[in-house]
């Protein structure tokens, strides 16, 4: 069939199996929007800001494992999308962002709504393309999806000049069945020799720890990870990005590790003799001061990206490969071993001693709602089974600490870039992917205002999200650092001139609720979640003085955590 460039874009998305595109129109993409209007297979969701289009596509991708798709126009449309693209890049999320561009003859002439999109996004994408001719359009889109979703996933930008999408110029269309690129060959299988060496090391360990991250979620290796951990009776900790890869309610789970990780997780990391890192990248929030990190450990590192291996911390047995395939190979080798001794009694005894510190304890007798209590109530009301998105700051840490995730792809947050404003649009993407599930957005009053306009998108598309605003009148995490390190000089961290959030939510046609008493919270949340077809904005007034503990301060190691005043008393 003969198709125009605009029709090719839409048909290519269809042939890729894309069902949902999040976007915002503009001059450079008018032809594409006309083509979208004249078909029904690919649904377009109109957001209210291009940043939200990318965050929604991102949330959709995190909740499903499929490649998210966003469509924005040239110039300001593309620059508005950069934050969302960088967010996806830092967390390795598969996403294709189609940006319009001024017509080819105008490129480089400072035309209306022109920016060098390829140049601007180059450092924050896995790859990008500027489509130069109509006959390369279909193949370029195929390459974009292939690159975004294979190897270490990441966002790919396809910049399409308006004249390429001209409805009057039609060519023969064929979408390539397969694509191979001589310059891009992601590694799949891990080296069997390295795998066997790793197993020898792990079986001889006296104080082993499994340290797992977002890579296990992205690589769909949760089942294999759980089987290995159980087979070998290993203590296991997750990073912020890996929560849910291993059931958090299981007794072998030590809690999250790192800057705001649990006492037992961090102490176990410091004392370990064999560290097994799976799909994690030794990020600075996790390692603390690198010189003090895991001083006595030999390190096994399984990762799909060779550049992540020995980048911050030198490892002893690197295994490059797809995490699911590597773990499957490990299981196969382990099942043939007859010398597996799972007796780690002394190590577990030590860990139980650390657990008795009860590092997450907080004052349960307060007359003001504590943020920890709000998250625990959310867990109870949703039976631990909801999809939870969050913004960035204290509320994000409390959600990670107090909502134990038993399944992967349930905890959706911006870990690498730490983007405020992510929570609400990401929740929209999650809800569109899982229309029957409970989707909660845990947020703060500073973060929620960054993409608050998306309440309108929720009205248009009937998205009954539950927004749990932990309202303390401050940018909580900034305030905490100012309290600890700047002698309480709260420079611009109070959030003045807050709107009446209940009235604001109602003005968009949603249900607004404010809760101030701890005794009222559970019933109010239950009422909110029982409203299956209404978005409920819960303004929960919480104690502004709560800080996130434990905390590893700059320059300190895992064993040098600062504990809460309550835990110090034990």
């Amino acid at each position, binding site marked *: 069939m003969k198709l125009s460039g605009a029709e090719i874009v839409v048909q290519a998305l269809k042939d890729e199996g894309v069902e949902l595109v999040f976007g915002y129109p503009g001059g450079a993409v008018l032809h594409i929007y006309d083509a979208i209007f004249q078909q029904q297979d690919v649904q377009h969701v109109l957001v209210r800001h291009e940043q939200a289009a990318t965050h929604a596509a991102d949330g959709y991708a995190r909740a499903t494992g499929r490649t998210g798709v966003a469509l924005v126009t040239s110039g300001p449309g593309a620059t508005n999308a950069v934050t969302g693209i960088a967010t996806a890049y830092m967390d390795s999320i598969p996403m294709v962002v189609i940006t319009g561009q001024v017509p080819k003859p105008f490129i480089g002439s400072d035309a209306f709504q022109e920016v060098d999109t390829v140049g601007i996004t180059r450092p924050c994408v896995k790859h990008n393309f500027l489509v130069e001719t109509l006959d390369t359009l279909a193949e370029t889109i195929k390459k974009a999806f292939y690159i975004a979703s294979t190897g270490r996933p990441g966002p790919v930008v396809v910049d399409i000049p308006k004249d390429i999408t001209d409805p009057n110029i039609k060519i023969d269309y064929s979408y390539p069945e397969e694509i191979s690129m001589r310059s891009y060959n992601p590694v799949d299988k891990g080296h069997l020799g390295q795998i066997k060496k790793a197993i020898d090391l792990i079986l001889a360990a006296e104080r082993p720890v499994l340290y797992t991250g977002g890579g296990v979620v992205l690589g769909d290796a949760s089942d294999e990870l759980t089987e290995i951990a159980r087979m070998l009776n290993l203590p296991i900790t997750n990073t912020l990005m890996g929560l849910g890869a291993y059931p958090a309610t299981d007794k072998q789970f030590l809690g999250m590790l790192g800057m705001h990780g649990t006492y037992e997780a961090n102490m176990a990391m410091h004392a370990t003799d064999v560290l097994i890192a799976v799909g994690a990248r030794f990020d600075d929030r996790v390692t603390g001061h690198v010189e003090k990190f895991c001083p006595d450990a030999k390190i096994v590192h399984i990762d799909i990206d060779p*550049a992540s291996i020995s980048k911050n911390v030198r490892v002893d047995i690197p295994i490059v490969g797809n995490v699911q395939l590597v773990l499957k190979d490990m299981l196969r080798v382990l099942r043939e071993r007859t010398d597996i001794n799972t007796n780690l009694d002394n190590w577990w005894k030590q860990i139980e001693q650390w657990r008795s510190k009860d590092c997450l304890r907080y004052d349960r007798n307060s007359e003001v709602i504590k943020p920890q209590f709000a998250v625990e109530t959310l867990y109870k009301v949703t039976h631990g089974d909801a999809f939870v998105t969050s913004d960035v700051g204290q509320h994000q840490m409390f959600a990670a600490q107090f909502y134990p995730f038993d399944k992967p792809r349930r905890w959706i947050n911006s870990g690498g870039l730490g983007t405020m404003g992510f929570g609400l649009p990401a929740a929209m993407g999650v809800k569109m992917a899982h229309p029957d599930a409970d989707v909660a957005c845990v947020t703060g009053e500073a973060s929620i205002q960054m993409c608050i306009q998306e309440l309108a998108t929720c009205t248009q598309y009937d998205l009954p999200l539950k927004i749990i605003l932990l309202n303390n009148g401050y940018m909580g995490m900034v305030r905490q650092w100012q309290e600890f390190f700047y002698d309480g000089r709260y420079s611009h961290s109070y959030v003045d001139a807050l709107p009446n959030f209940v009235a604001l939510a109602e003005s968009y046609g949603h249900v607004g609720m404010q809760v101030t008493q701890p005794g009222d919270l559970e019933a109010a949340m239950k009422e909110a979640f029982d409203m299956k077809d209404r978005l409920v904005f819960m303004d929960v007034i919480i104690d502004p003085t709560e800080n996130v503990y434990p905390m590893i301060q700059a320059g300190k190691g895992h064993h040098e955590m600062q504990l809460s005043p309550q835990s110090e008393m034990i």
Partner: protein
Amino acid sequence: MRHIISILMENEAGALSRVAGLFSARAYNIESLTVAPTEDPSLSRMTLVTRGSDEIIEQITKQLNKLIDVVKLLDLCDSGPFIQRELMMIKVKATGSWREEIKRLSDIFRANIIDVTDSSYIIEMTGDENKLNAFIETIGNDHIVEVVRSGSLGIGRGARGIQY
């Protein structure tokens, strides 16, 4: 330590920018960089000279390999014997007794004089980096008007070509 990295990459618009952008974003240092198409017009060959500790060089090569446009990468210092060459054109003051001296030095260094005026010469020279540096030092700053260098090129010795 100084490393010479030879990169075979797709001859796409922006490929050079990607490499330069990678280096500046991660604060790696580029001493020199040269790139041109190969006998296959769809492929470019880039030669890059950088300096750093072993860990930094390892990260640099890994990050370069991650670039989608990079087909094959070779750290020439780690891949067996290789030949390094660079082209230089140097404009020098050539008056009085110096005129004869400069001609003599050019012959000693096996260079060619490719431009002549009654007060200057332009000398063209190829060789490895040390030879070119030595010539500049020998001529001395007082006589140098302008220096243009291409940056190093490298190629492995022997019969095998770069495999990809």
